[in-house]
């Protein structure tokens, strides 16, 4: 099942990912996104890709 990985050193807290997919990610107290689940079901894959593509810095990736 796909997992969402956040590179905290690259993230600029633009908020783009949790604006497009608030169900999958939520900001922590530093405004860095945290995935709302360890793993996501297969049917969320497209939504996950949507969040990954919204990121201006390439800080999000999907791992299997």
């Amino acid at each position, binding site marked *: 099942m796909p997992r969402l990985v956040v590179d905290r050193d690259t993230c*600029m*807290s633009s908020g783009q990912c949790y604006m497009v997919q608030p169900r999958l990610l939520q900001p922590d107290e530093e405004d860095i996104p945290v995935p709302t689940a360890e793993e996501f079901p297969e049917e969320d894959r497209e939504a996950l890709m949507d969040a990954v593509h919204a*990121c201006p810095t390439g800080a999000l990736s999907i791992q299997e």
Partner: protein
Amino acid sequence: MTATDDRTQDPAADPRVEGLRHAPGGYDPTSVDYVADPHEVLRQMREDGGVHVYQAHQGPRVVLTRWADVEALLRSKDVFKDVRKLAPDDPRRVGVLPDENPMASAAPSILGLDAPEHDRLRRLVNRAFTPRAVEALTPRIEEIADRLLDEVAGQDEIDFMEALAIPLPVIVISEMLGVDPEDRAQFKQWSLTMVNSDLRPDDHDRIRRGRAARQAMRAYFDRVVAQRREAPGEDLISALVLAEEEGDRLTHEETLTMLGLLLNAGNLTTTDLLGNGLLALLSHPGQVEALRERPELMANAVEEMLRYTPPVLGTGRTTAHPQEVAGCPVGQHVSVSGSVISANRDPEVVEDPDRFDITRDEIRYLSFGGGIHFCLGANLARNEARLTLERLFHRYSDIRLAVDPAQAEWRGGGAFRGLERLPLRVTTRTGG
């Protein structure tokens, strides 16, 4: 050519935008009147469907004024920015490519590239602009602001633009890039000449000087990039050069383009955030009082300034193929512009949007764009604005506008919105 000339053609006669409503006559982004007070006509446009077409310099242009539509445009994968995808004779290529702009080079900047080329280049600069990296610059930015305030010490009237808003961003970025101390005065001069020529696109003399400054700047970067390759330091130019060396990732041309962009994208914009923001604040004496009582509100005040009076009016994309834009059929290769300044005042998203209120919570705006082109310098610009205004309010116990806000001198034209001058009457804090 003036805007009136442009309007003599019928934009909706173009089959690619057939059937779209015309923008009302008051919508003329090239005019000073529009820039000075765009909000009434934008409200009309939002209420009248939010999708209009007008005849711009280089053909018909669709303009979106509702938040949802502007945001969707910024994230859409069916539009592009890279002008090389247009036909070779398309007039929209002119001015963006190197023959017209000496700071541009054979390589387009990330601002004019689409995924995946954009992402590869942007990845190399992101780290210098993360919240943590920018936070580390705080003491230095404060020092620069204090130094600039020292230069106007003793005066009871100052032009905020000239004293702080224009020079501060230029100094900060040149230090980040790693311009050598002995070159900084010259570098600042070039940057200011460039900003001044951007400020007045109608002044040919300024344009000529701006062009010469761009050329000199490029030659300078050319030399410094070569030096840093020999002896890298801790600065941003070295970081770009090292990234280039490691995986053959940035070519020399790409490095020069990136440096030009870092310099150009952040100067006028941050200058205008400072100017527009302070004008809005000082036009609302009750808000100034709130800030004097609770100085920790400054970060939130800067967010409200970004929403209420954004430096960039809007940003454009081009349709890759025929499609529906905000529910309206639009053909291929049509310019579509998202009005950020309008979206920020869409009552569907922002409560009581015409009220300037630095105590709002959850301030939302599209002033830094959205999606993959979301402003690289957003954290830097926010910090520069907050720190500069904090130092200003620390230095002076009383700050007032020396002009009637209704008489403020706005610059005309282009995608930027900012002031020519912002005269202030100030009282220096005693014992501070």
